[in-house]
């Protein structure tokens, strides 16, 4: 059940909620059956994740329209309203959180690329197709997301030494 797990994982990270994630995945499975013709043998997981993502944004529009942000810039602004430099303000906010919480606090456009890249191990090309953005945008969003997360890693002293396997 790699695909259902992958789909659920993405939905869970996007919705922040187990039962909302189940609604999204169920909707995605029903859509998947309808769009089966568009499935190619080599990209089953990416194909299913594309559908899960679309189902999520539709769910968001129905249930939390206020959270629907089309512009990544404004996504950052919306989360960090107190300061003149929203990105710095968000970075400071993220600094105080453990890594998983810091990821959960990322604005959607950044959270989805991090999850697809680090948890689902998809290539930039696959992510570009799933998120329906150019390759360069995947790269810049990932790099920006990591910059925001980097603060939290540095703060907790996760250096190179503990990242390796040691021996």
């Amino acid at each position, binding site marked *: 059940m790699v695909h259902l797990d992958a789909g659920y994982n993405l939905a869970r990270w996007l919705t922040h909620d187990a039962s909302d994630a189940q609604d999204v995945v*169920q909707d995605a*499975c029903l859509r998947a059956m309808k769009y*089966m013709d568009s499935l190619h043998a080599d990209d*089953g997981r990416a194909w299913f994740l594309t559908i899960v993502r679309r189902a999520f944004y539709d769910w968001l529009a129905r249930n939390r329209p206020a959270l629907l942000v089309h512009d990544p810039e404004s996504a950052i602004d919306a989360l960090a309203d107190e300061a003149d430099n929203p990105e710095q303000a968000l970075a400071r906010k993220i600094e105080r959180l453990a890594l*998983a919480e810091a990821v959960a606090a990322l604005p959607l456009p950044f959270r989805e690329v*991090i999850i697809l890249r680090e948890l689902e191990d998809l290539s*930039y090309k696959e992510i570009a197709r799933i998120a329906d953005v150019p390759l360069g945008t995947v790269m810049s969003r990932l790099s920006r997301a990591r910059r925001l997360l980097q603060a939290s890693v540095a703060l907790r002293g996760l250096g*190179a030494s503990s990242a390796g396997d040691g021996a």
Partner: protein
Amino acid sequence: MNCDEVISLMGADVDGEVDALRSHALRKHVAGCPACGQRVEAQRALKQALRTELPCHRAPASLRERVAIALRAQVPAQVPAQGHAHSPAQSRADRRWRWFGAGALAGGLAAALLWFAGSLWHPGSFGEDLPTRLVGLHTGATLGHRLIEVASSDRHTVKPWLSARLDYTIPVLDAADAGFTLLGARIDRLDGRPVAVLVYRHRQHMIDVHVRPLAADAPPADVSVVRGFNVAAAQGAQMSWLATSDLNAAELAAFVSGLASGKLGPAGG
């Protein structure tokens, strides 16, 4: 390449998404620039932390049931309109394809839908749950610094340590001749039972090998990929052998089948 270019490219480079030429130029700059060296190292540390620390949520059983029921309800409505399903190229290598595709290959869409729904009820024993759990154990152990409970490269130390804690014994091989260093062992719980884990190192790669008595549902020799880790299975000496590592699939598969058949380095007993 200058520092600004390195900063804009290093994330993609750590992801393996930069072409060889630019990747080489980047490495050349980093070798002579301590500041960029630190930046790249920080990228690596973050990536590693994300991969090991972020919870990977697994679909709960209740979701599988919900989806299966919802899909079954769709079957009668869909079949007459659709007729025969498309026939995509068959790819034996791609196990993932089975999830959606095997039914469609077998015949009409009705079969596809039923198979699809059925697969949600009965997830297969391999290519699905087990490798994911093994990767979870592997990354959990690496992160929690409990990779090894008995540290010894001497199989005559490791084997009795394991035997004293399990209701079965396993052959422990010293695979140093083949380039695999035995670091020690630990016990993991897998499917509710304690299972022997041999820990080897090959170059920079840590390898967990879970060994348990062969059961009817033991996976055949195969490799699956979960979150960038490879899980290679083999059977031999009445045991099921499962190696988990970030080592490449070919070497890992060769190693685990060598362990299972006892043909790696001097035979153990």
